[in-house]
């Protein structure tokens, strides 16, 4: 229960009532997330990865186990945590600018003008300053996800949770956004990231550690430290021999879990 860990899960489990009885999504998850680390999570589909994030942010309560934030137990929505979901979930009736200021508006941080300036600055950093007055339906998928990310960054959360944020994007957009995310994270020392993905290359390229989850009910099967140095070049990192070793190692774990799903 030391405060070196920003979030700590102890024996966390979660069951849902389904049409055919109880479904256990997560079982006995133990996870320690050190402050400032970039943690990536992979696992077979349906292994409860999203449930894990929903529990950490406090949208869902675990049915078993304890969760700690900075050493203290907590329940309910944790406002120090930012959450970037798979679908962009921008508010369609707000302009890009007012989407980005949403968190600041709700929390009453700063004056209106300061919030606007801050939001414009962030939009500038992701190349969307000219789109500040646009609405959601006028943006492409990649643009929406950029806005989604800076909307969460705007209020400087201590932890950012991202649930397959680049899943639906094409390869080029995905690489650009991975690169962008790394830079944004490096500009904010002390910010912890938990990033779910189904793409191993992404998991290794971005993460300090890769958590491999088991098939349902989800548990932590293995945690693999990524020994690649930073800063990393996301465009060429996959050619590094260390990368390949890591890929093979993690893939072995993952493949076994995927086979378990089939049976």
């Amino acid at each position, binding site marked *: 229960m030391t405060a070196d860990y920003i979030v700590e899960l102890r024996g966390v489990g979660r069951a849902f009532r389904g049409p055919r009885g109880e479904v256990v999504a997560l079982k006995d998850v133990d996870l320690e997330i050190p402050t400032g680390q970039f943690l990536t999570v992979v696992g077979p589909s349906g292994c409860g990865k999203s449930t894990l994030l929903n529990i950490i942010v406090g*949208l869902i309560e675990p049915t078993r186990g304890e969760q700690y934030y900075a050493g203290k137990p907590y329940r309910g929505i944790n406002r120090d945590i*930012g959450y970037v979901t798979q679908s962009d979930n921008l508010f*369609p009736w*707000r*302009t890009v600018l007012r989407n980005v200021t949403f*968190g600041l508006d*709700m929390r009453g941080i700063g004056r209106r003008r300061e919030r606007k300036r801050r939001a414009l600055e962030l939009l500038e950093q992701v190349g969307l300053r000219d789109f500040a007055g646009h609405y959601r*339906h006028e943006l492409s998928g990649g643009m929406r996800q950029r806005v989604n990310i800076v909307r*969460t960054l705007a*209020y400087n959360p201590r932890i950012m949770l991202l649930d397959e944020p680049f899943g639906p994007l094409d390869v080029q957009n995905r690489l650009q956004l991975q690169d962008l995310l790394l830079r944004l994270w490096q500009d904010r020392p002390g910010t912890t990231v938990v990033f779910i993905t189904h793409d191993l290359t992404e998991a290794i390229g971005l993460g300090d550690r890769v958590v491999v989850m088991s098939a349902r009910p989800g548990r932590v099967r293995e945690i693999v430290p990524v020994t690649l140095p930073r800063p990393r070049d996301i465009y060429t990192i996959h050619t590094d021999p260390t990368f390949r070793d890591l890929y093979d190692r993690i893939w072995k774990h993952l493949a076994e879990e995927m086979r378990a799903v089939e049976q």
Partner: protein
Amino acid sequence: MKDIRLIIWRLVVVALILGAWQGLSGPVFDSFWVSRPSAIAAWLWKSIVTGSLGADLLITAKETVYGYLIGAVAGLALAFVLAQSERAAVVLRPFILAIYGIPRIALAPLFVLWFGIALASKIMMAAMVTLLLVFFNTYEGIRSADLQLKSVALVLGASRWQLFWNVTLPNASPWMLAGLRIAIPQALVGAVVAEFIASTGGLGYLIMDTTSTLDSAGTMAGIIVLMLVVLLLGTLLDRIEGWLLRWRPQEKSDKA
């Protein structure tokens, strides 16, 4: 340029209809029953000059506007209160559907009985029609709220009250506005129908009165004025709605 062409084409259609009416009334149809545009125009001109049309318009407009405002406020309030409770929603659902299913025109005689032949019964009729439409649409809008967006807003730091103002309300606004828009011509219809039952003035009275004296030009004039009022209101409302819902993709905005 396209707009001007469109307007010209529409004017041509109007001219054709009026021309055919004028030409066929007499030789083919008995103009005693269908009147003719020239007679209707003369009738309209006369009643505009004497001010009788203006007086009738004013009465109906008053009934519609008061009734609409009362009904809209009551409908919105009711929808927001009921939408707070899931239990209430489930229990009341069949009753709400049943009330919504009553042909609203059937209420008119009852309302005249309850509220008399003066303005009150027409206002109440317009209010009732408005209330039902606004309530039903708003209620559906609130209940269809996007749960994901709500979660996102909560994580971004919204309180319960902020959630209502910043997510539930704008999310429901297309339904709400649709209800408010449909209700305007319907409120007018409600008022006019109540006037049919018993009244001493208004466009409904004008139509009934001229019919009873077999003055077909007057009846047609009344119907045409009613039509123009509804048309004008509709155009105005489309503009307002288009501006309020400018955040929606274009092809969706005419769905409501």
